[in-house]
């Protein structure tokens, strides 16, 4: 159970990454925990890394916290830029777009719902939409937003549950054979068309399906 959400201390980006990387190795994870001192850390370091990003988003939303944004930027902006370059943008365009994506993340912080998406997932959707706009020069039709009522905060249990599902899905994907993971990457980096996705028999939808199924149940629950 996470209880440190509202009291999570500021954490340097490099410290965060260390913790993320060693998440599954028990021995080093003890060290990582010592390093960050009194913070409440779950048994699985990577889980709480995700929750930390959720907290960063809340600080950006509620207090326009530039320190939180700076850490989020340090971790995700180079990832967004790498993603855009893989999708066919040149370095200049990718830089410009990555800045716009991160600015949008700030400006739309109030739209982020941690019972429905991890911060990484949410940033991915912003980056994807920007890619469609800039690289494919198309509009991206989005579904009608679900209404949550005024200022409704999601239940903490739903948030923790969904964030954990995201982590387990990440692990499931990392455990996939290289060729299958590459195929998923290609699909998401725009190298496979929709008909190629439909025909890609090696696409391990089945393998990640059980994890997706659980994430799906969480989402269905969150949408009730």
């Amino acid at each position, binding site marked *: 159970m996470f209880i440190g959400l509202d009291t999570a201390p500021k954490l340097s980006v490099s410290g965060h990454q260390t913790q993320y990387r060693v998440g599954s190795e028990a021995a080093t994870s003890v060290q990582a925990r010592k390093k960050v001192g009194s913070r409440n850390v779950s048994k699985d370091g990577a889980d709480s890394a995700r929750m930390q990003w959720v907290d960063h988003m809340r600080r950006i939303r509620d207090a326009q916290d530039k320190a939180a944004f700076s850490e989020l930027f340090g971790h995700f902006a180079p990832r967004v*830029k790498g993603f855009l370059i893989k999708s066919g943008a040149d370095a200049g365009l990718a830089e410009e777009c990555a*800045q716009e994506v991160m600015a949008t993340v700030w400006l739309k912080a109030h739209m982020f719902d941690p019972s429905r998406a991890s911060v990484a997932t949410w940033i991915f959707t912003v980056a994807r939409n920007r890619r469609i706009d800039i690289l494919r020069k*198309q509009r991206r039709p*989005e579904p009608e937003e679900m209404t949550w009522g005024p200022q409704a905060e999601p239940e903490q249990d739903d948030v923790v549950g969904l964030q954990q599902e995201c982590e387990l899905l990440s692990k499931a994907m990392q455990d996939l054979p290289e060729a299958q993971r590459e195929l998923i990457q290609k699909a998401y980096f725009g190298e496979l068309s929709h008909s190629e996705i439909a025909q890609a028999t090696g696409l391990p939808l089945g393998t*990640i399906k059980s994890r*997706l199924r659980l994430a799906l149940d969480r989402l269905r629950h969150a949408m009730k």
Partner: protein
Amino acid sequence: MAEKIKHHLTPDILMAYSAGTLPEAFSLLVAAHVSLCDACRAEAESYDTVGGALLDDQNLETEAMAAGSLDATLSLIADGRIELPKTPAKTDATFPAPLQDYVGGGVSAVKWKPVGMGVKQAILKTSSEATARLLFIPAGAAMPDHGHNGLEMTLVLQGGFQDEDDYFARGDVEIADSDLHHTPVADIHEDCICLAVTDAPLKFTGLLPKLAQRFLQI
């Protein structure tokens, strides 16, 4: 959101929507269906989770940001140059919100063109890889018998239609590929309005429909 939807989108379509690789016209249909269907919304969002996992993958090749990029981003935020989507429309009795954006309003805003036998259509402006059109089929009327060269998806927005296999009501999606020849007939009780998307011209089986095809641009 209380639609009783029986015919849903397929996993590969939802994944491609989430990956952002569908042609715009198909994305429009997906967004319209998902606005009416919580099950497909949840599934689409679970595919977004796959994208998030890839973005946060420790093996992803990152690309260092330019010097001063954080400050540049903070001034982007401060000076209001980023264009955010305007407050989206609300789904009405016929058109889901994303469709209203393309039509420029509700049913009354559609610029229908008659195509014979009381059938009307309006082609929506999307990228050229695929075509999205609204179809108006009078109650009880049949669409010309046609097969498909590519993929065709039809989302029912009002009324319903029956083809050889099944009945499709508001919110249902019929997905047809090159194997399917069908003659949908609109429900007798109400005029039918659909959003139909194709990535290749339809093949009509009779001579007259072939001529009509030129006018229909389908």
